[in-house]
């Protein structure tokens, strides 16, 4: 499989899954604020963005398996960078919440943060590796 085919397959899942995730997250917030759904229904509806999220990670996993070893090394490094930043912030902020009484940080934001850091890191590692010239 070529890099182009792998990318097409990746984005064909990632983009719809991201749209579903954002729309479902927004929809749940609206439904909760308007109190139009009972709590059990909110729990049930929360499965939708979680399923979309798992779909995003599955698409990424498949993409990393389908590209060649050099591009995979860039993806692995970028994913690791995302993980390092997210876990460092989660753990660091957790300590601050314990001992410095800072405002609580919703762990919901760790997922978007992961994808943002991963994306930036992927661009940086791609440029540094000489893959684009």
């Amino acid at each position, binding site marked *: 499989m070529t*890099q182009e085919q792998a990318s097409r397959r990746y984005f064909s899942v990632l983009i719809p899954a991201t749209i579903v995730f954002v729309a479902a997250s927004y929809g749940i917030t609206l439904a909760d604020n308007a109190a139009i759904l009972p709590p059990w229904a909110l729990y049930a509806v929360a499965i939708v963005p979680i399923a979309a999220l798992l779909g995003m990670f599955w698409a990424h996993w498949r993409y990393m398996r389908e590209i060649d070893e*050099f591009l995979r090394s860039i993806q692995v490094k970028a994913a690791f960078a995302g993980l390092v930043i997210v876990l460092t912030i989660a753990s660091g902020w957790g300590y601050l919440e314990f001992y410095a009484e800072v405002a609580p940080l919703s762990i919901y934001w760790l997922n978007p943060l992961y994808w943002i850091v991963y994306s930036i890191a992927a661009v940086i590692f791609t440029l540094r590796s*000489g893959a684009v010239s």
Partner: protein
Amino acid sequence: MAEKLGVSRQSVNAIETGRYDPSLPLAFSIARMFGVPIEAVFDDEAQQR
């Protein structure tokens, strides 16, 4: 070349410019493609020091 090796153009570029060391199977594929031994394509930098 990239098509023959089954890798991306970016990978060939990175290998050519010395920014990426390929795995042993890929290095053998490259050498096989040129019809030469693997040592003719890749230098052992550690041995040269």
